[in-house]
């Protein structure tokens, strides 16, 4: 890369740098493009033109085939139910915890927070087998509820840590004024603290949703039966199956990409605002 330094205006050096970066961007994006191309081809078209030519038409056969074979609609619904429930439940739990810790001044709060943070860095492998064993004992194995419970707690541990830092800076005068007006702690939480910290809460909600959507390890262990699987688990397990041909495999990849990119586009604004929040994880 040539780096013509510090001249104002875009000289030839400037264009060279730009070109290099655009080439890199194309390389980064090419898997998305190639997968999309091939998902819309017929097997015959693929055999004739190879993987790199754009599709001749808009053949949905491979996608529909794959969709029906894995009951993809059901997988999407499972992912939605699990991620959505976890996101909402974990945000509520985080707010309650952080409120109690940050404003209620529980004794030993620093240690509780450190414990939560350590819990967040622990590898799930070190929890997996006992969780698997315990959930079998209480009859929750292979149920969405088990996954929802586990991720709600894990995400809420992080959320509590983050929110108690935010709520720690919360101006105490407002709360004092509220309590002078006769508002109980409970009312102060719902009518003052929650509305004021709404931006942080919405960032957390979206992150929890996407993090849970992207999880692989624990859902792989807990959701054994086909009709409970989430999107990443269903796709990951099918990978490498012999009966999948080229177009169908790329259709499967495309079906995994589409929801993720859709969330990214929908939540883009909140995400870029909150990306530094995510950096702490």
């Amino acid at each position, binding site marked *: 890369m040539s780096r013509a330094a510090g001249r104002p205006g875009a000289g030839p050096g400037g264009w060279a740098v730009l070109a290099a970066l655009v080439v890199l961007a194309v390389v980064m994006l090419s898997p998305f493009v190639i*997968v999309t191309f091939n998902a819309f081809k017929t097997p015959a078209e693929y055999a004739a033109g190879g993987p790199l030519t754009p599709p001749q038409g808009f053949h949905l056969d491979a996608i529909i085939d794959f969709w029906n074979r894995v009951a993809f609609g059901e997988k999407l619904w499972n992912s939605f139910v699990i991620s959505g429930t976890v996101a909402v439940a974990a945000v509520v739990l985080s707010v309650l915890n952080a409120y109690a810790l940050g404003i209620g001044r529980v004794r030993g709060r620093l240690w509780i927070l450190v414990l939560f943070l350590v819990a967040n860095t622990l590898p799930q492998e070190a929890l997996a087998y006992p969780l698997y064993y315990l959930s079998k004992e209480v009859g929750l194995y292979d149920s969405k509820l088990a996954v929802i419970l586990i991720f709600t707690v894990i995400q809420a541990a992080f959320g509590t840590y983050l929110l108690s830092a935010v709520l720690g800076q919360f101006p105490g005068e407002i709360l004092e004024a509220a309590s002078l007006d006769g508002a109980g702690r409970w009312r102060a939480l719902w009518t003052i603290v929650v509305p004021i910290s709404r931006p942080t809460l919405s960032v957390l909600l979206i992150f929890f949703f996407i993090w849970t959507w*992207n999880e692989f390890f624990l859902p792989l262990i807990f959701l054994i039966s086909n009709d409970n699987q989430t999107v990443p688990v269903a796709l990951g397990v099918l990978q490498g199956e012999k009966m999948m041909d*080229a177009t169908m495999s790329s259709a499967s990849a495309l079906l995994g990409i589409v929801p993720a990119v859709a969330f990214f586009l929908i939540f883009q604004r909140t995400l870029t605002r909150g990306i530094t929040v995510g950096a702490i994880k």
Partner: protein
Amino acid sequence: MVLFLAVVVVPFLMNVATSFTRWSGVGTPTWIGFDNYVKLAGDERFWTSFQHNVALIVAMAILPTMLGLVLAATLFDYIGKKFGTRTAAGLRAAFYLPQVLPVAVAGVVWGWMLHPSYGAVNEIFGLKVNWLGDPDVALASVMAIMVWFQLGYPVVIFMAGLQRVDPALYEAAEIDGASWGRRFWHITVPQIRPEVYVVLLTCTIAALKVFGPIFVLTRGGPGSATMVPSYFSYLNFFQKVNVGYGSAIATVLALIIVVVTFLFLRVQERDR
């Protein structure tokens, strides 16, 4: 709090306890003291799996951080100024896009791209390489995929960090005739050092825990060419039903992660 105990603390302690036993998952575990750990220390697969972890730290933390620094600084301090911030933002979005995928889906995409008979990569370069099936190439392929996957994260974090740097610093340096390279070393890197620490720490932890891409792409193979500790413990838990041994691996991994985290935080603290 009760839930937290039930989901995190108790299972973790159970895991540690199980690591001192021989247990197949059913029946009563037999207490065998440190036998699992002794066996672990002499197990060649275990040591190779940690070497692969180091390789993945390079691919997931060190390379993306270095590339990310150069890219973020170029986009911010060069492209952004000469071609407008929209161009810079567009390129940033392109670099970031792989990051939005579930890591298992990224694995599916690359499993397809690198497929020995119908994959696109061999077609583009006119090669016949079995990227994920050849023990000499598999680890390098996985590393390259992880660089692709991770790169966007440091770019976005570093560009956000650069926004809080006082523009007067750059202007003063430009008036003094400092070259792009000098501005990079003397302004950009020192100013966003906190972000560099955060990215290095989070990515190192992610690399130590890596499971999804290995499961989807290679299942640790061929042989144990891409075996990592997390997959190794999974194998012992659910396929070989050596639960005690798997727990010992997971416990060691957890210890390493906690130690790495504390070391990072100490270094960062001292640096302030």
